[in-house]
């Protein structure tokens, strides 16, 4: 298991220490360190990281505002110099709460919690429905479920977009939907199913995934906003 993370904390001395701690942990790859939450919002691809170390007390945008601005909230490890943020950590289902300063011993305990979290929650789900077979150009091909972004119903067939490639199949949209984990995918239009964690933008009744715009029917709009935790 290899996990990708990012650190968002305006305290550069602290982030230097965490980088040092992480440098000896093989299972976790540090994707980026951001001292400015606004920069993190614009640069992090939240579909590509597994979790965040997030400071709660930052000027301009604090940790709570940062989380509220995300369409898809990744698992987080809450970091703060104040113990009172433990309650917020609980509310956001944080994997762990780290009270600054953080010793290496305490950090390693947190790493164990993170590993357990992903072993328990992420791995079993993906191992059960890790891939599906679809008939494309006469051959059954395997698609990794997590790679599938968009499924579109055309007049006579269905197109699955996975890893930037398109695959046409004669299965019905409904049949494909049943093959996918319902917790990860949602029908947003009579012709579209999308993987929720792949959505980059939501603009009213239109969503964007990898630069492709997808309409959202009014029937599905409130459910979509609810599932993306958009208030």
């Amino acid at each position: 298991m290899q996990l990708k993370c990012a650190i968002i904390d305006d305290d550069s001395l602290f982030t230097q220490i965490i980088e040092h701690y992480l440098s000896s942990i093989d299972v976790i790859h540090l994707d980026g360190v951001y001292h400015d939450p606004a920069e993190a919002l614009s640069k992090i691809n939240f579909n590509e990281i597994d979790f965040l170390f997030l400071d709660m007390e930052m000027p301009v945008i604090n940790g709570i505002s940062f989380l509220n601005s995300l369409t898809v909230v990744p698992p987080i490890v809450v970091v703060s110099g104040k113990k009172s943020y433990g309650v917020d950590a609980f509310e956001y289902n944080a994997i762990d709460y780290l009270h600054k300063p953080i010793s290496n011993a305490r950090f390693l305990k947190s790493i164990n919690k993170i590993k357990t979290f992903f072993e328990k929650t992420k791995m079993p789900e993906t191992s059960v429905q890790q891939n599906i077979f679809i008939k494309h150009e006469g051959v059954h091909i395997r698609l990794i479920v997590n790679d599938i972004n968009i499924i579109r119903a055309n007049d006579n067939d269905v197109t699955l977009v996975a890893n930037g490639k398109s695959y046409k199949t004669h299965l019905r949209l409904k049949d494909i939907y049943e093959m996918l984990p319902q917790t990860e995918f949602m029908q947003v239009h009579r012709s579209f199913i999308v993987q929720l964690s792949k959505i980059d933008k939501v603009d009213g009744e239109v969503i964007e995934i990898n630069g492709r715009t997808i309409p959202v029917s009014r029937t599905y709009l409130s459910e979509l906003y609810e599932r993306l935790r958009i208030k």
Partner: protein
Amino acid sequence: MNIQELKSYLNCDDAFLISIMQKFIDEVIEITATIKTATNNKDWGTVKTNAHKMLSSVRIFEMKEVIAVLEKLEIEAGERKDEDIIKKDVERLFVLIEKIILDMKTSLEEVKVKVAK
């Protein structure tokens, strides 16, 4: 501050310790200057933000006296109740900072000498 305890706390070698100590000195000097200017301008929001910023750093080195002043200053500057009290605490902070910077520079030189041997 006990250097050996800090090394064990951070589980690090002398090279990393030197980089952390140097960064601490640089940051504290910079934040102190910002607090000084903000106090002169009665910009209590900046005083609060920077007191908080410095707190993070001094907690690593367990500088209890400075921590107490900064915690008080962060609250007072946030509430903006009594400017005279804030100014007094800022002055107290500067006295303490002068001492901790001096101590830290001495410790840093000691570690550097040890590494050079």
